[in-house]
Each structure stands twice: as structure tokens, then as C-alpha cells.
């Protein structure tokens, strides 16, 4: 399959990634995408309709835990990692929807 990597694709992907790219970085990214995705033609060598996808290496199923509460972890241990916080919460600039 041929996918032409365009400037628009790079710009859209940067948005999905929450990254700002300089023009130069965009160009570099275009080139990089083209090289790596160029190898994708090696994947054309099989009939995809007859092969199931593998998402996990192991075939384990039903890995479950009992519904029993653990000890409280301690809010301060987590909040102390935050770049901005109040006494009890993480703080971000006012979010408007």
C-alpha cells in the first residue's frame, strides 16, 4: 500500500500528539515517516484476511483481582509530585469547555 506522507498528515499527527513542530522539524518528520513507512511494503507479502492479529504474546485470559480494598496509598505522596497543586488537588489553568 502506498501512503503519501504529506505536510497535512504531519500537521494533523502533531496535533494528535500535542506537539509543536518547527517547519524544519516537520520536514524532517516527513522524511522520517517516508523511510520507516517505506518498509511497510514488506508487510504486503501475506494475505491479511487469513491471519488473525496478535495483541498479546500470552494466551492467558481472565486475569482478575478480588474486590477487596487495599490500604489507602496516601494523598500527599502523590500530590507532592505535582508541578502545581493546592492542599488537596492538582491545579491547572481554568478549563473552559
Amino acid at each position, binding site marked *: 500500500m502506498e501512503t503519501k506522507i504529506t505536510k497535512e498528515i504531519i500537521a*494533523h499527527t502533531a*496535533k*494528535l500528539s*500535542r506537539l509543536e513542530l518547527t517547519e524544519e522539524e516537520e520536514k524532517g518528520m516527513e522524511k522520517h515517516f517516508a523511510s520507516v513507512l517505506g518498509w511497510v511494503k514488506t508487510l504486503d507479502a501475506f494475505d491479511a484476511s487469513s491471519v488473525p*492479529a496478535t*495483541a*498479546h504474546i*500470552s494466551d*492467558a*485470559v*481472565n*486475569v*482478575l*483481582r*478480588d*474486590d*477487596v*480494598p*487495599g490500604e*489507602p*496509598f496516601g*494523598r500527599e505522596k*502523590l*500530590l507532592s*509530585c505535582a508541578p*502545581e497543586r*493546592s492542599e*488537596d*488537588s*492538582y*491545579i*491547572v*489553568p*481554568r*478549563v473552559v*469547555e
Partner: protein
Amino acid sequence: MSGYVPTIGLEVHCELKTETKLFCSCRNKFGSEPNTNTCPVCAGHPGVLPVLNRKAVEYTVRAGCAIGCKISRYSKWDRKNYFYPDLPKAWQTSQYDLPLCTGGEVKITVGGEEKTVRLNRIHLEEDAGKLVHGAGGTAVDYNRCGVPLMECVTEPDMHSADEAVAFLEELASVFRFAGVSDCRMQEGSIRADVNLSMSRPGEPLGTRTETKNLNSFRSVRRAIEAEIRRQTEVLESGGKVVQETRRFDDATGEGYGMRGKEDAQDYRYFPEPDLMPVVLSDDDVGRIRASLPELARDRRKRYTERLGLPAYDAEQLTCDPAVAELFDGAVNAGANAKKAANYVMSEIMRKGKTAGEDGIIVGISGTQLAELLALVDKGEINLVSSRDVLDRIWLTDETPSAAVDALGLRQNNDEGEIEKLVRDIVAANPGPADDFRKGNEKVLSFFVGQLMKATKGKTNPKIAGELVRKVLSE
């Protein structure tokens, strides 16, 4: 008349009432101090891994059984990726193409007519945190992050706000009776998104909008009505409805579009590598199905058909599973069905309702209620003093009989003793006694009242009335 008819589909989110969250052993508890029910897993720290809560799977399957869904024998987990400050990992673990339940239906009655609303699916996912907007910024609380959430998606089978609200009420009742969710709107444990489009009969469906995150039956109704008005106006003025995500502002009663969110709606779903699939055998499903309690609809049927209660009573008794449980418990412990129903509908519901707006707190067991009713029946106490007994045993294990003794409420049924008291009171009130003899029956209650006052209400009122009449008639 425009001739446009709304077509409505709902996505309903219900929080499961498990002890712990979906993927970590933090408590699933509403109303805690911000961020106290969090750990590195639900706060999305680097390196953490999820482990699935067995109960959450069982509850979702049970919910599916309650509304006749097909239970998937194989289901899996997917990541739904998007950035938002209430989502610490920046993805929501959800189920994309293989949900736990598919199909199913809910029967509703609107304007005396029964209708069926089909479900498309129920899947299990994790809830997001809570944002509190203030002047200095937005505070983020992850207590709700990772709480197990069922998403129930309907087919577009509803055509009015009434039908949508009736569906929500019935779904909430089913889930409450199934014991899987409290469905408390106040606490946000049930929330709905409304998909709505307008079209003329016979024409293809119009462009739909999605109004997100409505958290009361009232706002669902108002949002639907507002959106019907808005889309109708747009169409009638020759405009086009734009497919968009909207919010409804409860304060203004208006909806508004969330601009700029559209191109970000590429969720890049892919299989969650950190969670293994869920495989259910027929035995598993059978076992979960067997754990399903009797639902409201079935109970109502039993109450009217087997216990001979009026439809109104059956409706009242099934307003809440705890109420129905209490009633059934009392009947099982030997109480007369109608008497128990009356007592539950008057005394218990009055007392229980004060405790919380959302639902009812039931503070006594069926056995306690049956015994209390028996005490009233046998004349050990009267109805009025039964309230004092109720107050005392509420949320305790004390038997009503012990409470009656402790409160000294046991009623005097000794006719000789009562007659003596009556004679004293009649003698002390010659005026009213004369009135009776002249034919004024009303004074009877005056004498009974005096007697009750003198004995602090502990006289059998039936015996008292009879004896007052007897003495006055002599």
C-alpha cells in the same frame, strides 16, 4: 405544525457499586476528601499496571442478564486515547469492538402505552476524575478516576422527552434491583448523553447532535426539549443541523455547541496490551444469571397477583430495592401483606426519605417490622407509640419488644383498671358528661384524650373508647 419528529438514542453511564475501582484496589466511594481514594495506578503514574476487578465484570454481566443482553463469551479491552485533565493516563480503558454485553431491551410505559427500547450494547470502562472550576484555576480530583462504569448504548428508539425519561427511570430501577448500581443522579452515578435528530415521518433520519453529560432526569428532559426546539427552528428556517457535540447549561436552560472539539475526536482505539481478555463459559454466565435478584417489574406482578395488593401499593413498594426487600422480609416473617404495605408506605417511607433525597434509607429489617406490626396487632402498643419504637430500633438490632419495654410503652389492656380511671375522669368532668347524655357524641374523644393524657398514651385506645361509652351511658 412543523411535522418534524425527534429520534432519540441515549448513552447511559452507570457507576457500579463495587468496593474498589476497576483496575486498582482504591475505594470506590463517593464524597471522600479530594484525592484521598487514589494511588499511583489511578493517578496514572509512570510504570503502573492495571488489574481487573472480578466483581465489576460480574456486575456488568448481571446487568446484561437483567435486560436480556447477549453475554459475550469473549471480550477484550481497548484504549481510547484523548487528552483531558480529568484523565490522568490520557487514555480511557474501555471496550471498543468486543463489549461484555450486546443487544437487550427495556420495556417502558408512556401515556398508558407499552413500548420497547432496544439496547445496542453494554460495555465496561473506567470513569474519569472530577474538575472543580474556581477563580484561581481548575482543581483536579482523581477520586472518581477508575471507578467502574457501564456504558449502555440504546438504539434510536425514543421519540420524546417522556420516553427518554421513562427509559432512564426503568433502566435505573433495573440496575438498582439487580444490585449493580445505586444509580444516584445526585452523586453522578448515572449520567446520560443524548443523541437527537429531527426528521419528517417517512424521510431518512436527520443530522444528529450529541448533548453530553446530563446528570439528572430533569436536565435530560429539559435538554431534549430545548434541542427539539432548536433543531426544529433551524430546519424550519431552511438551515442545516450541524453534527456536533453539545453541552446543556442547567442554569440557562440552553444548550451550546462545543466548538473546536470535532477534529480532536480521533480516539486512536487499539487493544490494551496490559489487560488480558475476558472469557466466560456457559457456567460462568449461568452462575451470574442465578445471582440476579427479582426485579421491580416481577415484584410488582407478584405483589398484585399473589399478595393481592393494589397496583398503587405495588408501585410504591418497588420504588427502591431496599423498600421492597423490607416489605418482602416482613411478609416472610409472618406479617399481613396489606398491613405491612400500609405501614411501609406511611411510616417507613416518611422516616426513610428524610435521610437522603436520592433513594431511601431503610433502618430496620423485615423481621423487626413483622414483630412491630404484631405488637400493634395484639394491642401491646398503639400505632402512635409504634413511631417511638421505630425511632429507637432504627439502624439497630434491637427487637421491637425490647424497645417497647425499655421505653415503657407497653399498653394497658386491663379493663378493670381502665374502667376505674374512666370513672375518675367522668366524675371530674360533669359538664362534658352531661353533653354526651344530651346526645353530643363528640365529647367521647375528649374523654379518651383525657385518659391518654393521664396514662401517657399507654392505654389501649380501643378498650378506652368502649369503656368511656359504657360509663357515660350508665
